[in-house]
């Protein structure tokens, strides 16, 4: 139990670090550094907690991304920042890099290297499983983070009209 918790905290810490690294690449304002780190870390925490309870990676990514979308927008208004600053960097650590890698690797093996029909059939399975998981995780991330922003955006437009 304890090592699971420690692993979870370690992974969330590095999710936060990855979010912050991308934040710095995108030149986020200095006063939002801590918030981006915390949002990235909590998104990673939620994602890996759900995965630990055997929830599919697509659904857990979606939940974590909507968490970022739901928390990020009010937070942004509170510290007077536009929502993009808090919505994009924390989501990037959840990008399905390993699925993408497996897909590319198996496509390359399928096309250039493997000749035996059984292995080729296995590779087709690997390509489709990983490829579609990658596409669905990407969709879950973009929809998950953008939908709360669009739903809550009515408020800012109203403020402008007044």
């Amino acid at each position, binding site marked *: 139990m304890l090592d699971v918790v420690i692993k979870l905290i370690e992974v969330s810490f590095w999710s936060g670090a*990855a979010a912050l690294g991308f934040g710095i690449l995108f030149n986020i304002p200095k006063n939002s550094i801590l918030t981006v780190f915390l949002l990235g870390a909590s998104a990673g925490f939620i994602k890996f907690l759900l995965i630990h309870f055997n929830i599919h990676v697509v659904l857990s990514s979606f939940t974590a991304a909507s968490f970022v979308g739901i928390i990020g927008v009010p937070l942004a208004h509170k510290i007077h920042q536009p929502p993009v600053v808090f919505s994009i960097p924390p989501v990037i650590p959840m990008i399905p890099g390993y699925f993408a890698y497996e897909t590319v690797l198996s496509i390359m093996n399928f096309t250039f290297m493997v000749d035996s029909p059984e292995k080729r059939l296995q590779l087709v399975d690997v390509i489709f499983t990983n490829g579609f998981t990658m596409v669905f995780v990407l969709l879950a991330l973009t929809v998950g983070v953008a939908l709360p922003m669009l739903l809550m955006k009515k408020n800012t437009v109203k403020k402008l009209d007044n």
Partner: protein
Amino acid sequence: MDESSKLIKTADLLLDISSLLMVSGANTSRINVTIDRFASVLNIKASSFISHKTIVMTLLDEKANLSRTRVKNIPPYTINFTIISAISKASWTAIDEQWSLEKINEEINRIKILEKYPRWLILIAVSLAGAGFCNIFNGDYLNMLVAFVSTFIGLYIFQETHKFKYNLYIRIFLGSFVSSSVASIAVIYSLGANPQTALATSILFLVPGVPLINSFTDLMDSNILNGLVRFTTGFMIVLAMTIGLFLAMYLFQINLR
């Protein structure tokens, strides 16, 4: 200054603001909202056509019954959230304090030269992000070191080629090829527990997160054209990354475990 040249000056300022926002990675509806805010302060009506490379804007001064149209080409894209944040703040203060044209111009010129993070900090932070990615995908600390080093070298090449004004997709291909080659060497000597994770994460610093997420928000806001353009940009970047990774894996003959 007569009304006409004042209107032209205003149009140029608003175009400057929108191209600054576009280049820094704001989505289309945010640009429209910001332009409307500044226009309401200056008591004019602005309508604009925003595309990836050009912005066309018509300003209408209802009192003088005068309208002027100006066009601006958009410079190369460099994502910069500090600028988006500063312009957003300026637009709110401008409404509260009813800024004049000169005051807005002054503020925009100040925002343009806002400091960026130093290059060494960007290099280290992004490489740490690469190492973090590696940890997320079950890499141990030796794998993370490999991911750190290969991200560092790849990003360095990516930044250096910027000076030669190479095509963006060629630069991305080069960055991806170099960093995955470095990580491939570690795979061949099988360093650490999961050497392949380092290879998978070494190119993630190029991931087009901003174009893809903005593409979706634009599509949802019915800015279909801009949404498709951003999606295509993101797709081209992913393609360039994949070809770099592909080539490195082919040269180093990486197989499935």
